[in-house]
């Protein structure tokens, strides 16, 4: 607390002479109201007793004198302008950005980081001047405008209080763009004219209240925006979190399942934790692991004879964040792909597609090209009854609602064309990264002739030869069409029907067919364990074609989802962590499950960052990025408060005078 004199010495002398004047006036004030009484006999005797401490008694009797002196005292103190160092907001337009990502649920500052952030934001609202305007944005991986610009403090307070915790990751980029949109209005220009600014720029101050676990935002222009970052959280939080959890079938031992997890420790000490694995709610395995400080540790479990299950991994450790102490994985019954092979006869293809491995993942049916003409086939093909249809040396009248593999023929779809057949093409390149070509070796393969392919827009070549593309894949309305430019078996010019390539004799052929069944049959989606992050859309597929599925969240909220293309369903409300249950059509029983986990090392790392890495140049510190700062110091004065107090005392004095209150 310090003081600044607001008056000149002469004024002080004048002011200082007022209290003695009031007191002397009080003593001199002898204009007493005369009242005639029957006798002063008793009064005289009364005041004789009171005359003992006369002056003090007289002072004590006058409440009004005291109140007058009090008013004056408050005025004098106000003239000293007492004040203290406080904080203030800079500017008159503010954007309060409050982090609601998963890491803000940490309890290292009680009751949680988010509550502390809200409290801080409320404090900032309190510091606003009456003419200031502010807006409130909460952000996780998506921003949300809680309150548009307003100078109504109660609206701002309400908006801040309404902000709730999310389980999502952090991405401040979109929130920054929201904020800068106002300070840096867009420009427009027409041909031949210079840029026109469509609105006036309104400089604003942005207060980011976060723990700083924010990915760098490289593309952002702050323009007229001034940024301040308030760090929430203690310097030494404790947290051990699961950042990955997945399952994999052992390729060597069918039926055996391996579960892998990765734990990270953001605390300052090595921590020994108990990791427990639950299968359908029952504890099946546990181990004690030591997670090094600022490091990661892998854990693996082996499970036998598991076809479908819900796995839960739990870390038994009391830390500051509980969201990442549990992780879920689901194993659904592998969904079999439905494959139709339309061929006039192809033993090599038949052998390759009816292997044991293929039988595990697909139901394969064979049909003659004549079948394509039937109404029944057309209906099935258009209703999405097949995942993959292989057309060997034949083409349908209309493209089916399924993935297709054309062998030796062009799909009857727009964009596909081929040049004249070329003899003996030489394979130059293979797209080994594509799943279709996974482990497929095409060295020393002889091909009689091929049609150099040209695919539609978006098509990519999987196998290139000197004459052109031999294998192309192209998207079509959510499906994919693969066209093989050569026949496996075909008619030679001499009328002999024989193999036109030696590829089926190579090991790579069944591998390619298997890849095709897995990839185009859609089996890859169901064979893998489905999992996603909170807030992301989840793509679901059903065994049988159905129009609608019902998804039940971990807390029991049911959502109906309508079918998208290719028998897939997009569920976009996966905000809770845990296992979701999918029910198909009107089925009561759970068809499949999928899990939503946090799995984010950045969120699990609770140590608050000193800087938010955005392209912002701080002019005062001359550093790039927004560094954690204390609020701007300013002098807070209390003379207004003192004068208000003085006024209140005056009102009280008026009351005393009028109501004749006695001490």
């Amino acid at each position, binding site marked *: 607390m310090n003081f600044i004199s607001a008056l000149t010495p002469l004024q002080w002398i004048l002011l200082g002479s007022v209290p003695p004047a009031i007191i002397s006036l009080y003593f001199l004030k002898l204009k007493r109201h005369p009242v005639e*009484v*029957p006798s002063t006999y008793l009064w*005289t005797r009364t005041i004789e007793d009171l005359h003992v401490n006369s002056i003090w008694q007289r002072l004590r009797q006058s409440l009004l004198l005291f109140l007058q002196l009090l008013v004056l005292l408050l005025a004098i103190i106000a003239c000293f302008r007492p004040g203290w160092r406080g904080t203030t907001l800079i500017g008159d337009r503010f954007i309060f950005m409050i982090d609601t990502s998963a890491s803000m649920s940490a309890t290292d500052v009680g009751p949680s980081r988010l509550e502390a952030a809200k409290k801080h934001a409320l404090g900032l609202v309190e510091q606003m001047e009456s003419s200031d305007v502010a807006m409130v944005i909460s952000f996780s991986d998506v921003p949300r405008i809680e309150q548009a610009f307003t100078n109504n403090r109660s609206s701002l307070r309400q908006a801040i209080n309404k902000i709730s915790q999310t389980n999502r990751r952090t991405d401040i980029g979109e929130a920054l763009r929201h904020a800068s949109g106002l300070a840096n209005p867009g420009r427009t220009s027409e041909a031949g004219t210079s840029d026109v600014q469509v609105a006036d720029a309104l400089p604003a101050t942005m207060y980011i209240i976060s723990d700083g676990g924010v990915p760098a935002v490289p593309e952002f222009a702050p323009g007229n925006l001034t940024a301040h970052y308030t760090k929430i959280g203690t310097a030494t939080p404790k947290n051990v979190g699961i950042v990955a959890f997945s399952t994999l079938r052992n390729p060597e031992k069918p039926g055996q399942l391996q579960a892998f997890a990765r734990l990270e420790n953001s605390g300052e000490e090595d921590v020994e934790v108990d990791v427990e694995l639950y299968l359908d709610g029952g504890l099946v395995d546990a181990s004690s692991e030591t997670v090094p400080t600022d490091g990661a540790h892998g854990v693996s479990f082996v499970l036998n004879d598991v076809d479908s299950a819900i796995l839960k991994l739990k870390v038994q450790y009391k830390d500051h964040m509980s969201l990442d102490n549990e992780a879920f994985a689901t194993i659904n019954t592998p969904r079999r792909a439905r494959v139709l092979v339309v061929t006039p006869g192809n033993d090599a293809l038949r052998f390759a597609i009816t292997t044991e491995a293929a039988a595990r993942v697909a139901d394969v049916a064979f049909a003659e090209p004549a079948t394509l003409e039937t109404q029944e086939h057309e209906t099935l093909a258009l209703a999405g009854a097949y995942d993959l249809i292989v057309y060997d040396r034949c083409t349908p009248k209309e493209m089916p609602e399924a993935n297709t593999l054309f062998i030796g023929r062009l799909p009857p779809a727009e964009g596909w064309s081929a040049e004249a057949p070329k003899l003996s093409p030489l394979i130059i390149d293979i797209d080994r990264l594509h799943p279709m070509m996974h482990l497929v070796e095409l060295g020393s393969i002889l091909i009689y002739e091929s049609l150099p392919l040209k695919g539609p827009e978006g098509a990519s070549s999987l196998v290139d030869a000197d004459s052109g593309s031999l294998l192309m894949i192209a998207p079509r309305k959510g499906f994919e069409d693969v066209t093989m430019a050569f026949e496996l078996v075909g008619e030679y010019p001499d009328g002999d029907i024989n193999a036109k390539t030696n590829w089926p004799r190579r090991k790579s052929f069944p591998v390619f067919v298997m890849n095709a069944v897995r990839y185009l049959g859609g089996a890859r989606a169901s064979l893998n364990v489905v999992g996603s992050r909170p807030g992301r859309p989840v793509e679901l597929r059903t065994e049988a074609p159905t129009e609608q599925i019902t998804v039940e969240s971990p807390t029991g909220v049911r959502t109906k989802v309508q079918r998208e293309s290719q028998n897939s369903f997009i569920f976009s409300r996966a905000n809770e962590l845990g296992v979701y249950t999918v029910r198909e059509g009107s089925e009561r029983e759970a068809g499949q499950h999928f899990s939503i986990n946090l799995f984010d090392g950045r969120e699990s790392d609770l140590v608050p960052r000193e800087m938010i890495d955005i392209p912002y140049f701080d002019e005062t510190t001359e550093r790039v990025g927004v560094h954690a700062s204390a609020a701007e110091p300013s002098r807070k004065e209390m003379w207004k408060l003192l004068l208000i107090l003085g006024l209140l005392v005056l009102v009280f004095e008026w009351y005393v005078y009028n109501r004749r209150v006695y001490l």
Partner: protein
Amino acid sequence: MSSTQSSTPLLSPQLLAQLERLELVSRKIFRGRLKGERRSKRKGQSVEFADFRNYVPGDDIRFIDWNLYARLDKLFLKLFLEEEDLHFYALIDTSTSMDFGDPTKLQYAKQLAAALGFIGLCRADRVKIEALGASRKNPAPALRGRSSMWRMLDYLNSIEPGDNIPLAQGVKDFCLRNSGQGILVLITDLMDKNGYEPALRFLLAQNIDVYVIHVLSQAELEPDVTGDLRLIDCEDTDVAEITVSRPLLNRYKQTLATFIDGAKEFCTRRGMSYLMTSTETPVEQLVSNYLRQRGLVR
């Protein structure tokens, strides 16, 4: 200051009816001057037997108990109690201080005196109502009999406040002029700066049954004053400057209580009856309740 000539009558018909049934009582038995309606110490003619005594020549032979003479062969004279009148005096303080309150203390005192006087008149007692210090200019009449009620009321109505003689002086005057025995009711506010004690001592010297009725107005019991005041005594224009505050008012009440207690103790010790009353207490209630309890009337 309100007028002493109050428009309200001193005695209302209801009060008169109530008072007719009452009578004045003296704790002492005094000798009256005329034959009245109350028993006297003296033997005389009445129906109430008192005693026997030997006959001496000259006695009225009508009172000889002949039955006794027949049995004892001696002459005895039967004595009967004499019935006598009672002297009732009411002394009203008419100083200016009595002219305060609503009704004024003086008006209240007049009403009380009238009520008591009427009781006496109804019982054929000798009633004398006198204003203190008024003897010189307006001598009080001695009254007897119900028919004298109007004279009494006229006299009372003629009493004006303003005779600011000391209480002791007034009482002394009265005692010098009235040496008779009986009942004396002193109606006053006892507000005398020289003290009330000398006045009461004069009365003590008389062989008289004294009742002191201390009348105070509500303004004296619960002063309704605020602010900085200069209090002016209406009798001697003495001035007291006060600043009203809670402690001062408390102190005043304490002083008042001490004053009342002092007067009460002084009277009780000396065989006088003391009764403090407020002008707020109706006269009917005072007469029929409080004075009955004190034994002045029955």
